[in-house]
């Protein structure tokens, strides 16, 4: 079956521009996660959606970052007024349920480069 897909696979943008990254989770998965992976670092949690509950935004690094999940499916991560330190690979994952028991399935990521 189809896995988690992300688009675009690569994005180059100028400092100060806004970008939108898209994630299509596996059908039927109620949980969706966004992570950021910088060179030489592990994955940094950004935001977590679970069903109809309010999202856990505790990992968002600044108010320039926001995310939505429409209809419990597709999610968009928006970064406003991008900075060079935003350059990273942004990974999306989905799972059947909460993070304690359910495997997260990861997408291939979007590589963001801010020039």
């Amino acid at each position: 079956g189809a896995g988690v897909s992300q688009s675009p696979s690569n994005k180059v943008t100028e400092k100060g521009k806004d970008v939108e990254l898209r994630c299509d989770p596996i059908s039927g998965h109620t949980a969706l996660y966004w992570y950021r992976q910088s060179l030489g670092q592990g994955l940094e949690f950004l935001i977590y959606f679970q069903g109809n509950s309010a999202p856990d935004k505790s990992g968002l690094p600044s108010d320039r970052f926001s995310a939505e999940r429409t209809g419990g499916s597709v999610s968009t991560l928006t970064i406003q007024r991008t900075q060079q330190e935003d350059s990273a690979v942004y990974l999306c994952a989905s799972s059947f349920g909460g993070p304690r028991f359910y495997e997260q399935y990861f997408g291939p990521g979007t590589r963001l480069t801010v020039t």
Partner: protein
Amino acid sequence: AQSVTQLDSHVSVSEGTPVLLRCNYSSSYSPSLFWYVQHPNKGLQLLLKYTSAATLVKGINGFEAEFKKSETSFHLTKPSAHMSDAAEYFCVVSDQTGNTPLVFGKGTRLSVIA
């Protein structure tokens, strides 16, 4: 709050020799622990997970890990390395509530020498 420390940023082994990737965790509650693998230019894949059942967990591709509460460790092992095992490995912790997302270690890069 939980945290995880991967003790080696890079491990190099010869093909056919054992693999040991070390991980220590800190958690206020009984944790769930995972190992994920990331092959070059590929997505992350779950190797195995511990969720308070058997302390010795077997995963895919011959990997296994043992949960040792007294040592707060969850080391990943494999008896015999294969060239295809070369990848980045992440140790991950989630607390008992299951409501906080996973916390990833910084990763260990495994190199396998022919």
